[in-house]
């Protein structure tokens, strides 16, 4: 395939959905949903690795490309997106919120863009787009619970972005070329690699909902419509995992402490998923726990890979994308099946109604803000106001007025006397002088 066409296709992968999102902003449109996927599908079936540099974009080193790893991820994503789009098509037709299309397309652009990104900056930019658009999708679509989930995810996302930004800065400080390969090479030899690695892991763990940070996933899943539920795996989780694979120099660097930490987190995740998935026994929730389980497995794999790079080189590099793709497809099939079952049964959605209690993760920040407002930031300006008022009072109280009034009055009445005292002194000099003159 010739260069220009490939370049165009690559650019169209995130570009077309972005363009299509603009007219969808305030109109209900259906046709863009599937059309937006076309360039990706075409690209998927064109053989060979290909990459482009975009020297004008962002920090001058943005790039996009396609290789074997990204093909797997693309394949998985495309499948799920098609499914999601199909479901969405139906719900939009039935007249729900028309902003779904725009947000869907933005999320799509971010996710696909992240997969084809070849350096840290463009990856970061695309995942940010994806993350925020997905939060919007959760907000638009769901009920109270979904919104709450969205808000929690949003907070995690912001924190994650800040952490990843710091990681990015560290990488930027080491090399001008922020391509994945170059960064891997440099980080492996850098003394500050521990900082970098822990930040990357923390950042993507937040984004992907690793074990202790997964809280919002069940919330979102429970109330989101199927079209969005599909995306829960592919968008936040899988892309987070992809980020780890891309950003961490796996197979090159050995970092046992962090690896063990990841291992522990993964194991706990598996344990949790099994326990809760089994205990809840709510069949509708099952796919989600599968996802958490899979995340745990993946984290363990990463952990092992970091403890012993050799193992990763042998197995991980090839199996990771396959694993993710497989989980993704499974996830999609289960959900689709469930949705189909549900519709067939005609049972009303049993999404639990919000009970009005505010969960802790919202209660505490709000309480802190309330407290801060009460104690500090309302009293501080208040204090200033009162001082100003007092100062104004000082200006207005009769005292100063009187001082100045009296002063001016004094000068007016005593002006002649003031003059006199000035001049009489001089006159005495004159008299003395006349004496002197006469002597001369």
């Amino acid at each position, binding site marked *: 395939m010739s260069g220009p066409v490939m370049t165009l296709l690559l650019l169209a992968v995130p570009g077309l959905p972005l363009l299509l999102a603009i007219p969808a902003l305030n109109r209900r449109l259906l046709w863009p949903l599937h059309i937006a996927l076309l360039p990706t599908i075409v690209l998927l079936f064109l053989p060979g690795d290909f990459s482009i540099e975009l020297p004008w974009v962002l920090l001058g080193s943005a790039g996009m490309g396609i290789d074997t790893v990204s093909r797997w991820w693309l394949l998985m994503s495309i499948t799920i997106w098609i499914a999601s789009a199909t479901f969405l098509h139906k719900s939009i037709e039935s007249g729900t919120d028309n902003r779904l299309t725009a947000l869907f397309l933005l999320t799509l652009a971010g996710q696909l863009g992240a997969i084809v990104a070849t350096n840290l900056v463009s990856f970061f930019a695309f995942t940010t787009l994806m993350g925020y658009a997905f939060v919007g999708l959760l907000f638009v679509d769901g009920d109270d619970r979904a919104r709450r989930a969205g808000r929690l995810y949003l907070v995690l996302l912001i924190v994650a972005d800040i952490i990843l930004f710091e990681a990015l800065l560290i990488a930027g400080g080491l090399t001008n070329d922020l391509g994945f390969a170059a960064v891997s090479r440099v980080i492996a030899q850098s003394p500050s690699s521990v900082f970098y690695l822990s930040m990357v892991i923390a950042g993507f763990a937040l984004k992907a909902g690793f074990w202790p940070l997964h809280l919002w996933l069940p919330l979102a899943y429970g109330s989101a419509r199927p079209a969005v539920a599909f995306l829960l795996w592919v968008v936040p989780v899988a892309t987070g995992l992809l980020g780890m694979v891309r950003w961490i120099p796996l197979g090159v660097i050995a970092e046992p402490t962090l690896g063990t930490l990841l291992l522990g987190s993964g194991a706990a995740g598996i344990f949790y998923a099994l326990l809760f998935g089994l205990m809840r026994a709510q069949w509708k929730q099952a796919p989600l726990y599968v996802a958490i389980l899979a995340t745990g497995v993946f984290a363990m794999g990463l952990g092992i890979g970091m403890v012993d790079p050799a193992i990763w080189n042998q197995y991980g590099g090839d199996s990771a994308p396959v694993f993710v793709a497989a989980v993704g497809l499974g996830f999609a099939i289960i959900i689709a099946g469930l949705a189909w079952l549900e519709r067939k049964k005609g049972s009303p959605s049993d999404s639990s109604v919000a009970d009005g209690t505010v969960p802790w993760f919202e209660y505490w920040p709000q309480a802190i803000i309330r407290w801060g407002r009460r104690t500090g930031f309302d009293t501080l300006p208040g204090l200033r106001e009162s001082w100003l008022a007092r100062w104004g009072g000082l200006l207005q109280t009769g005292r100063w007025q009187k001082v100045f009034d009296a002063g001016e009055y004094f000068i007016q009445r005593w002006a002649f006397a003031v003059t*006199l005292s000035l*001049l009489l002194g001089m006159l005495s000099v004159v008299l003395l002088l006349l004496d002197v003159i*006469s002597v001369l």
Partner: protein
Amino acid sequence: MSYIILYALLGVGLFVLGLYALIIHAHLLRKILAINVMGTGVFLVLVALAARHQDAPPDPVPHAMVITGIVVAVSATALALILMLKVYAATGKTELHDGKPD
């Protein structure tokens, strides 16, 4: 002490006297008179000091000055008197009200 100095001192004395009266008296006519007395004092000083030595003929220049000064003083007095009458007509008083804000 020569008589020249005596005259000069007399002039200065008049000047101080006039100044004193200017400040002490509230009535405008008295103030105007006081100014005139002061002026006379200055003229006296000028005339007296014109004689540099008791023997030499006096310097004519101060005399010319005094004549000019008298002309000025007359016109000033005339203006002051007119103004005083106007003040009286407008306020019914022959004094200046001091600067106390009304």
